[in-house]
């Protein structure tokens, strides 16, 4: 297993915890910021080589800045697009190419229920996740015939530093629980799944609200 993230200390801690639990040198890490897309192809190839193969890629990098209702901040918005969307394209393009050549493999992209509608609360966050959903669907349609599975997961509220302190949270699940569900979905190779599944019905309602009405709602 290869872990890719920014913070070296955190990576060291998680990597050694995994290796201690399995009793093997199974995990290693590479410190990397997904906004630095230029170095991704080389890093990706190197990781595949060091792993001695690759079955599953999970793109879970994502940021959501608190944005005031009347705030328009290009800095925050561009950063969310960079991390949530451009980084995903930079990593998953080579993954999709590799897997389609091998004729196997699974790609998981962590989207969000927020990507299903353009909410007034956080325009760029919704955009980045909606873009990610469309991108994942598109690469799925490209590589499905090669035996490659692309899984879009759309979590609701997950208890992480990103959601801490937000108002109006409900159905909050732990990150461990979310990871468990996501891996199960990946194993089954479902195309798209809400996490947890009950969000599906809520989002069915929310998606079917006409735009003229949705505009008046404070969500």
């Amino acid at each position, binding site marked *: 297993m290869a872990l890719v993230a920014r913070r070296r200390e955190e990576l060291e801690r998680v990597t050694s915890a995994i290796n201690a639990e399995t009793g093997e040198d199974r995990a290693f890490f590479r410190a990397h910021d997904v906004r630095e897309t230029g170095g991704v192809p080389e890093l990706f190839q190197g990781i*595949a*080589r060091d*792993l*001695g*193969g*690759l*079955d599953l890629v999970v793109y879970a990098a994502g940021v959501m800045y608190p944005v005031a209702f009347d705030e328009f901040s290009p800095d925050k918005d561009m950063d969310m697009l960079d991390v949530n969307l451009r980084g995903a394209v930079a990593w998953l393009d080579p993954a999709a190419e*590799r*897997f389609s*050549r*091998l004729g*196997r*493999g699974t790609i998981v992209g962590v989207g969000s229920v927020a990507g299903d509608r353009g909410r007034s609360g956080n325009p760029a966050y919704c955009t980045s996740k909606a873009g990610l959903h469309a991108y994942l669907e598109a690469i799925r349609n490209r590589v499905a015939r090669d035996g490659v599975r692309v899984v879009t997961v759309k979590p609701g509220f997950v208890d992480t530093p990103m959601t801490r302190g937000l108002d109006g949270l409900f159905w909050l699940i732990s990150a461990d629980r979310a990871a468990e569900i996501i891996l199960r979905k990946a194993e089954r190779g479902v195309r798209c799944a809400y996490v947890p599944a009950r969000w599906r019905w809520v989002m069915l309602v929310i998606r079917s609200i006409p735009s003229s009405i949705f505009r008046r709602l404070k969500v």
Partner: protein
Amino acid sequence: MAVGAAGYRYRPETVDRISEILGAARTAGVPVVARGSGCSYGDAALIPEGLVLDLSKMRRVAAWDPADGIVDVEPGVTVEQLWRHTLGDGWWPPVVTGTMEPSIGGCLSMNVHGKNNWVRGTMGDHCLELDLLTPDGGLRTLSRETEPELFHAVIGGFGQLGLVTRARLQLKRVHSGLTEAKAVAAPDLGSLLQRLDDAKNDWEYVVGWVDAFPGGGKLGRGLLHFARHLEADEDPDPAASLNPANQDLPGTIFGVVPKTQMWRMLKPFTNNPGMRAINLAKYLHGSVFADGAVYRQSLAAFSFLLDYVPDWKKIYLPGGLIQHQSFVPASEAERVFSRQLEICRRRGMPSYLGVLKRHRPDDFLLTHAVDGFSLALDFPVVEGRRDELWAMVRELAEPVVAAGGRFYPAKDAALPGELYRASFRNGEIEAFRGLKRRLDPDGLLRSSLATRLLGD
């Protein structure tokens, strides 16, 4: 664990091109594995995220001397190409595999044996010299006279010390393209081993087939097949029998079923009850109707049993198969093989095909041969029981090591490395590692098999 690994495949046609590719791989830090015809049963020609040097395009017979039966071949030349080239002149490879597909480079790297291992040794015993391209780009010619240590380590060194780019082989004079063969039944393992041993001095080729399904008093029952080359005065028309065109295996089975489709007909039987029935039918036929039968058969028909059903491996899809072949000293063979067959029965994973052979020791460093017998067992890999099968291979191998036996990398996919290493008791592994460090200090040549068996 199944892993989707990528690789790069190169098919060089010249030695210079191989050197270039090795140089490029070294620069890129990518490991290289050599591949011949891809006939090894396991991971001998695989390396994840590495470069596969497919030598099948280097398949020229460089020189052939029909007076002395000496041939120079490139590594990708197959056993089939070799005998088709030489049989018309009255020469046959002294050692052949059970299929004619393997490449000579692969045969030497695995130091293969045939059904006459007891009398003729291995393919390496008939190699006069070979060219070895080492990872540093150096090309050297080895023979047992000039560089005996390296010669005996490269042959049977599963491609880890360098690439064989040319081999010179001494073939065997034959006066006919026919054999006289004999079939004999044996009701249990003890008599099977005894009759095989008794026959080895009278017959060039001896091989036993084991029905691995029954237990108790029928444990290890089977059939034996012996054969010898016809002498000059025995064949009424040697010119005809030596013509390779007359050696072709039949294109149909029972005269009607195209043999390329035969595997599809066997597929429904590829399960425990089906294979039990097929093994039983084979044994009954051999013991009731054909016991003691003597008949004439072409060399190819007797030698290349595995080619009777093309694509036979496909009957094991989707899981595939593994084989486990153990070599055990003669005095311990009955005890160890009985135990192995019992283990398979107890675990409910019987072998679908069991083959018994007689062997003699040789001078090669990592040789698999001992003065004794070998039992090769084929097992289907069934989804959900893979770990159990791998655990069983360990259990099958442990008594072999305890009895001073050996294993055969060409056939192996699942043997734990520590058991392979424990089967060498006189520092052979350390000696081989020493040569590896000398010839390939950066470890450019690697295979999954070598990594598993040799360890670090």
